[in-house]
């Protein structure tokens, strides 16, 4: 497991949520949630169902507006960026339930991800680049097939390719292990670590697969009912009594 160097934190975290709050009617989805994601780390965001993890993603990607608080990326507020402008800053994401373009081919899906980096570029060069990314995520063989009808694991990889082709500095992965079998989860763990180590991409990971999160994350942040209940290195978080209570003990013990 790679060691994160927490002794000398960089001056500016890549992503910073500052007391972000969001209410839906009477439900508090996020209650003054703050966390800092340091560059070139894997940051695990966990919590029971309905804890506000995906809400946090949607706040960062500007699909939801915070009622109060701020979201800083590289020291600058994102609150005036439209949803389509977020990726231009260098933030790409995947979706929990896979949001693809079903009638378009796998290659075309990937090319849409390159939308912000393909202006005034030659079509052929962009296709070559997209094909390269498809090769990197291991689905080059289905490049010309329509996305609809491909296996779920492949769809998840198309989303990854679409996110990576935009040359992001931060990727938000929303339950990338959901619906994958044991071997696929193993491959995914290696893959996410390669994103950090080889491509120098920072990863914000929402995941229910506790074993995966605890194994590859440099830092784990735990939400419950929209509030932060723990934050720190995986080993510390696993021992936190509040976290154990939130998860009723079961899953975390299995992971440790």
């Amino acid at each position: 497991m790679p060691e994160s160097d927490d002794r000398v934190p960089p001056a500016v975290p890549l992503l910073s949520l500052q007391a972000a709050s969001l209410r839906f009617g009477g439900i508090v989805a996020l209650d003054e949630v703050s966390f800092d994601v340091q560059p070139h780390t894997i940051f695990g965001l966990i919590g029971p169902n309905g804890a506000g993890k995906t809400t946090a993603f949607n706040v960062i990607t500007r699909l939801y507006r915070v009622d109060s608080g701020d979201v800083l990326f590289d020291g600058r507020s994102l609150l005036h960026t439209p949803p389509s402008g977020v990726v231009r800053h260098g933030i790409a994401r995947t979706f929990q339930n896979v949001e693809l373009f079903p009638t378009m081919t796998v290659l075309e899906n990937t090319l849409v991800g390159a939308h912000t980096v393909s202006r005034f570029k030659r079509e052929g060069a962009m296709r070559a680049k997209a094909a390269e990314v498809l090769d990197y995520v291991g689905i080059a063989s289905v490049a010309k097939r329509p996305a609809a009808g491909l296996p779920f694991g492949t769809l998840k990889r198309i989303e990854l390719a679409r996110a990576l082709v935009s040359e992001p500095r931060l990727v938000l992965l929303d339950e990338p292990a959901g619906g994958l079998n044991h071997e696929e989860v193993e491959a995914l763990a290696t893959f996410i670590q390669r994103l950090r180590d080889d491509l120098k991409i920072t990863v914000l990971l929402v995941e229910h697969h506790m074993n995966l999160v605890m194994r590859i994350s440099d830092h784990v942040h735990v939400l419950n009912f929209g509030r932060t209940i723990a934050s720190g290195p995986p080993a510390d978080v696993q021992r936190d009594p509040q976290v154990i209570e939130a998860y009723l003990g079961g899953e975390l013990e299995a992971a440790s």
Partner: protein
Amino acid sequence: MSRGLVTRLGVIAVAAGIVIVLGFRLSDYHLGLGARIAIYFIAILGLNILTGYTGQISIGHGAFMAIGGYTTALMSYYHHTDLLLTLPLALAVCFVCGLAVGIPALRLSGVYLALATFALAVSIPQLPLKWSKWTGGSNGIRTFTSPGNNWLYRVCWICAGIAFVAAWLLLRGRTGRAFRSIRDSELAAASSGVSLPIYKTLAFGVSAAFAGVAGSLFVLVTNGYAQPNEFGVLLSLQLLIGAAVAGLGSLYGTIVGALFIGLLPQISTSVPLIGSGHGQDVVFGLIVILVMILLPNGVAGLLGAIDSRFKSAIKSDPTTS
């Protein structure tokens, strides 16, 4: 060049050849009909960019045709502008009108957008009645000169060819993919950096510009008369039917859609069904219903299905994970 591209260019060359040969062989009446088909082709092409590619339903394209048509008629009547020069003018006017409609339309989607555009189809063609002193009211207004069918056939099909190439250039790369991504998933499109307001409005503008040119030519084939009744709701519906028959999101099916709405009324007139004056409408409606049931994805969907069945027959489909 890929094999697919060669096949497509071949199909286009054959189609262009047929159009040219017919131009020398057809009777005067049929030249007029051929010109109408070219006009439907341009309008359906435009509607397809908006509805087929970008996923924004419009039942109001007759309104944009009316704006284009009246642009030509008014310019020709009052300023004796060369008819050919009124075409780019109609294009520009309708592009701006399309943008103007597209911006408020951003707040609507699905059936609500369909209803709003339907309201356009109902209301815009009635506007000339309001200023009937200038527009001739329900009698309409006539262009200063009205060209013959031979001229019309040529001009309409040249415009259709230009429109096809323009649509193809627009849709083949980054912009076309942005349009289609919005149709497939607005959420994923926005997250990929595709600005929904910009591309949806652009699709409206371009689509309306195509309809505007079609409207100009439409006035010319109706002996130069621009009349409110010519651009009624039925025209808007016909265009949508044509686009559906063509297959939403298919450029090549457009010619079939244009032939369908251009020729079907001719054919259904000759079917003696009920003996009433509206028998042809019944036949037209029945055929439309049949086509919708039998070809839910249009002609393009049918060709695609045949193609994939053919391919899976010659090689077993490898299931990849």
